């Protein structure tokens, strides 16, 4: 339908900078998730695209069209709010018909379109009811119907599933994805639920304090976080992150907590030789490590004492204390060490992430930028 582009967009509210010089492209027909903690500026970006807020700086484009100064109703967007914002004094039918009535669409056309979209979203039997007489999931679909009936080029969704129970959420999120693909509409989906973002989106944009942290497909976000923030925000439990000193006697090696050493893989070696940082920030995912009794050759190993064990049925989360650092490891249900036991935490080969201590950027990305830059 149309591609949405933000170029150098900044939005300030008084002294608060909610969105800070953001450059983003939301691909035509793509489903993009905006992911970030509370107050990071997700809704603000959405409202900027919708035209509810005007950017303090920068321009916004829909395809070739500069829409920066256009009103919301001139942009052909559909917007679904976190709390649905259905008009309480109108029936479901009138709610859905409202945008068409405002466009002075002939009544017969309105009728056809409302019935069609209602059928599409399985709410045909709810048309006479008032919003207060609907369940959360039904309200959500009505809100979606109201956004879709306009046949928008861009569909904006602000945490539309956050009010639903976990089961309904999973059901509706696949439904939403299907609808979006069927219509081929460009969708921007705001959420602070990372599993939702990873499961639904073609592309995930991670944002913190109004600044874009990473913009990539879900697996990249998960496997190759661009910086410490993304690594520690994504995953449950999130990545283990701790500082470590370096040693360059023969090759770049990390002094891990508990007194072990690990000499880094090829892909990090080059960049470390060039930068020669005395310290790095180390990270690995709890699911990429295991508890072993004897250290295995080649794998990075950290020695520590079992602190707590949380059995979750399908798996256990074991917390290991090494020096003053607490590491979480996901283990199979049968691996359930005693608290106080001395164990080795072995990280899968190639799963150790290293970050520059100053910029907190993943050294892998720094290496890539260098090789690209020449």
């Amino acid at each position, binding site marked *: 339908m149309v591609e949405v582009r933000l170029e150098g967009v900044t939005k300030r509210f008084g002294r608060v900078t909610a969105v800070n010089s953001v450059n983003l492209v939301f691909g035509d027909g793509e489903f993009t998730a905006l992911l970030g903690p509370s107050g990071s500026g997700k809704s603000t970006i959405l*409202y900027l695209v*919708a*035209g*509810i807020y005007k950017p303090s700086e920068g321009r916004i484009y829909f395809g070739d069209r500069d829409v920066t100064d256009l*009103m*919301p*109703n001139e942009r052909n*967007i*559909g*917007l679904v*709010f*976190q*709390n649905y*914002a259905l*008009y*309480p*004094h109108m029936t479901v039918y009138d709610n859905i018909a*409202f*945008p068409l009535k*405002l*466009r002075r669409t002939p009544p017969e056309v309105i009728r056809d379109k409302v019935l069609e979209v209602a059928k599409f979203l399985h709410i045909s039997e709810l048309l006479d009811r008032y919003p207060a007489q609907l369940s959360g999931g039904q309200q959500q679909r009505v809100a979606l119907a*109201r956004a879709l009936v*306009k046949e928008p080029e861009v569909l904006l969704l602000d945490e539309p599933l956050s009010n639903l129970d976990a089961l309904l959420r999973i059901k509706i999120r696949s439904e939403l994805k299907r609808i979006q693909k069927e219509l081929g509409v460009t969708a921007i989906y705001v959420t602070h639920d990372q599993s939702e973002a990873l499961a639904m989106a073609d592309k995930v944009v991670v944002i913190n304090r109004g600044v874009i942290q990473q913009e990539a497909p879900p697996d990249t976000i998960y496997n190759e976080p661009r910086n410490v923030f993304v690594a520690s925000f994504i995953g449950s439990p999130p990545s283990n992150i701790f500082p470590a000193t370096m040693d360059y006697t023969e090759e770049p090696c990390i002094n891990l907590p508990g007194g072990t050493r690990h000499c880094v893989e090829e892909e990090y070696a080059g960049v470390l030789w060039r930068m020669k940082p005395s310290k790095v920030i180390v990270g690995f995912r709890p699911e990429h490590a295991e508890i072993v009794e004897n250290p295995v050759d080649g794998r990075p190993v950290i020695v520590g004492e079992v602190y707590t064990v949380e059995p979750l049925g399908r798996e256990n989360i074991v917390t290991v204390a090494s020096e003053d650092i607490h590491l979480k490891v996901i283990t199979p249900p049968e691996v359930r060490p005693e608290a106080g036991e001395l164990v080795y935490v072995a990280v899968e080969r190639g799963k150790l992430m290293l970050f520059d201590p100053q910029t907190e950027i993943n050294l892998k990305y720094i290496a890539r930028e260098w090789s690209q830059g020449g």
Partner: protein
Amino acid sequence: MARRGRQALFFLLPMLILVVAFYILPLVLTAWISFTPLTNWRVRDQLVDFVGLENYVNLYYLARYDPDFHKVLQTTLVFVVLTLFINVVGGLVLAILTYLIDERISLGYRLLWLLPRMTPLAVFGLLWYYFFYGGPQGTLNSFFLKMGIIDEPMRWGTDPAMLPYSAWAIIVFVNGLVGVSYGMIIFYSAFKNIPRELIIAARVDGAKTWEVIRHILVPIVRWHIVFVTVWQLLSLITSYTHLFVLVQWSVVDKWYGTTLALYVFNTAFFDVKNQGFAAAAAVILVIIGSILGLLTLRIMRFSQMISPPRGDI
């Protein structure tokens, strides 16, 4: 069911006692007095001296033949209808305006409109006394004289050449100024309770400002509009204090500034002190008020707006 009834009674009891003591009893007493020839509060010999419907018959003849009383009835109708319109529609307009503009400006603006209501009655009366005063010192006169719009001072509310409209205009204006802030406050707070997203949603759906007002703001506060209308209607029918001051200080003509409520008050306590007759007029007033109140609720389809209880007790 019986238990629920008892429970309900328990919670309603304090209010019931108040209503009985301060409304039902006086009402019964008034109705009683309306069948007696009570004058000048000669309670001892006249309170049990029934005259049947005489007071009502007198009232009927007055309504039929007395030109002054005709003026009172006309004034009542004009005053209630116009002031009610100003209070409800004006209140709504003010609330919408103050809702749409910047909060800081809007606060001062609303306070400004509250001033007439906060001003003590005597001060307020004095203000309008000077404002509409018939001599050249009167505010309005001196202003118009300076501007060269008039050549000599006008007696705004009493000059027979401009009656009854000038007197009506003044009483409607003065009372509207006091009453309009009530609706404004109620409507404004109702608007403030509308979630912001609802307005944004309407904007995104393509509504222009007046369409937001028409399709969202006004329908959502419909219940408040009904409430303010009925409340203001009843209070306009029965209140007389501001009018009393205006008439007493001759800001407006005596008869074209007197409504039925003021007429009852004057008859009972001021002019002729004929309490029996005043009571009869008061009873009629209560009946008119009740009918009009119910009628308004019916017209505004109140019953459709009553929702079932929010939970079972």
